């Protein structure tokens, strides 16, 4: 694939934006509230599958199916969160890893969800299922509008790019405002020292649950948008490693700076997809089938090196290092 093909980079842009949403979800739960959620990909998966299932099997209108998908993600957040809210961060980390593996496992094995074949096989192996039906006219409408402005550049992928990034930008503004509000102050204090916060009359458990719910909404939204973008998805699209890509975005940009998220997302998109084009020596020694593994290996290396050398990220403030506890 030609590195200069703009359509490819538009697609990368969409993916980066969706990962950015996932990173925002992590930001709310982890950078703001101090809750390490290592299974966020499950929220995406659950929302995506719920939406697809409702449209395909229950004929629910796409808008409502999407909303319910997000609600399902929130429910999962609460299910995992309510017992863990009392406990230390360790437990939430484990519970969420386990939970996300479970979701992936169930979605691979339940015939309801089309098994390993994924959303295509939802009506059974011989029937092609589609839930993106009612999304098409919407996105095409946007494409038509955009074409009047920017001309031929506007493809449906481009429209998706605009939708995703507009959503991300809006949410960043909202959550920044939230962060600077008294609510954000309490959240920060809970992250720092729960007991101090409690001694001042703050209901720690309630705040943590709120963070989980908000994170669930954002993760679910990311999942819904992802499903709409790629159309056909299967459980393998929701590997646990996705959560760590989101962490990587946070780390790249700086874990305590909300505006660094889009920067981290773009960097990540370039890093991840750009490695596709590493056709030069010595990497050309590695055949293309293995490139995928090389890519993941590089991600792992970057993760380790970043954590070691610059844990506050590119733009973070060293004094406010979120990770030191």
């Amino acid at each position, binding site marked *: 694939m030609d590195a200069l093909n703009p359509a490819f980079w538009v697609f990368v842009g969409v993916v980066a934006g969706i990962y950015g949403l996932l990173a925002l979800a992590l930001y709310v739960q982890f950078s703001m509230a101090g809750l390490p959620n290592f299974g966020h990909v499950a929220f995406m998966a659950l929302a995506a599958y719920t939406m697809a299932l409702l449209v395909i099997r229950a004929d629910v209108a796409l808008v409502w199916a999407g909303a319910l998908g997000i609600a399902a993600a929130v429910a999962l957040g609460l299910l995992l969160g309510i017992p863990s809210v009392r406990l230390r*961060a360790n437990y939430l980390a484990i519970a969420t890893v386990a939970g996300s593996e479970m979701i992936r496992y169930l979605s691979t094995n339940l015939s309801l969800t089309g098994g390993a074949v994924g959303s295509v096989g939802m009506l059974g192996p011989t029937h092609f299922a589609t839930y993106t039906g009612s999304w098409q006219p919407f996105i095409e409408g946007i494409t038509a509008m955009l074409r009047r402005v920017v001309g031929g550049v506007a493809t449906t992928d481009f429209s998706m790019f605009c939708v995703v990034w507009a959503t991300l930008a809006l949410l960043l503004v909202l959550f920044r405002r939230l962060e600077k509000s008294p609510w954000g102050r309490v959240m920060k204090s809970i992250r720092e020292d729960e007991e101090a916060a409690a001694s001042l009359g703050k209901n720690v458990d309630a705040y943590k649950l709120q963070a989980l719910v908000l994170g669930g909404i954002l993760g679910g939204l990311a999942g819904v948008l992802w499903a709409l973008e790629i159309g056909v998805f299967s459980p393998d699209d929701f590997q646990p490693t996705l959560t760590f890509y989101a962490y990587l975005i946070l780390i790249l940009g700086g874990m305590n700076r909300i505006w660094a998220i889009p920067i981290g997302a773009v960097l990540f998109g370039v890093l991840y997809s750009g490695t596709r084009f590493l056709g030069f020596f010595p990497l050309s020694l590695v055949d293309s089938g293995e490139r995928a593994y090389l890519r993941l290996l590089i991600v792992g290396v970057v993760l380790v090196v970043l954590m070691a050398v610059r844990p506050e990220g590119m733009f973070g403030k060293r004094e406010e290092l979120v990770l030191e506890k």
Partner: protein
Amino acid sequence: MVNESHMGSLLLQLIYNGLVEGAILALAGLGATLVWGIQRVANFAHGDYMTLGAYVAFLLDVTWSLNLVVAAIGAAVATAALAVGLHFVLLRPLRGRGLVALSLITVGLGLVLRNALFMVAGSQPRQYAFNQTAVIDLRFIRVAPAELWTGVAALVAVPAIAAMLAWTTLGKTMRAVADNRDLAEIAGIDTDGIGLYVWIVAGALAGLGGAMLALVQGTFDPNLGFNVLFLILTVVVLGGIGNAFGALLGGLVLGLVMEVSTWPPLFGGVPTQYQPVVGFVVLILLLMFRPQGLLGKARVL
């Protein structure tokens, strides 16, 4: 028509399988819990350490045609060496970064290990030079040779490690530090130096466990250990983080519960492919009702 003696012998079979699997989980979980308790690191690469062990054993057994026992020992040694190496190079210098940072580092390490194995060893399933189809009839149960040998290994390894923990100075020290590091420091124990030994033990157990797991499963690929990571974490929580005997007990219990849950008389039995779900449910129930695990002490706030 339920054949009663058939159900009975099936149960025995399941119990045997459960104990063998449980022993593997116990050994891996023991290493993980010691590391967690002492180093305060949730080692998300622990599964990949196991995978490495499995592949080293493969190298020794198949490629170099050595005896499987030698291969298993080789696996343990190699993994221990890697664990210690990573500890010195990466984890110890970066200790002050905090639990979550270190955990993320272990995630990265796991990614590197796993994908390096994919690149070097390939993604095709491998198996040891073992007769996979023979069946040995032991009157009450029938086992494949692989299962028999794994059972023997478990029978040797688990009590040996338990004895080491219970009676040697090193073992007692490890347990004390894993259980309550601050208290141990006050008591004058060199909590830093212990880290080296912990990683040797944890690494060796992971390597051995990986080889055993690969043997029991029959075929394996670089995702071997990663696939059981959350079960290992469940074992750690089940036994109480930092509680060595708890992890041993917890592993056996979890293995048993998962296998026996498929026994038909129990509400029709859980279909085999849903066994991990049982593990997950155990974890969730634990977190809700007894987060300190089977043997851990309830912590005050």
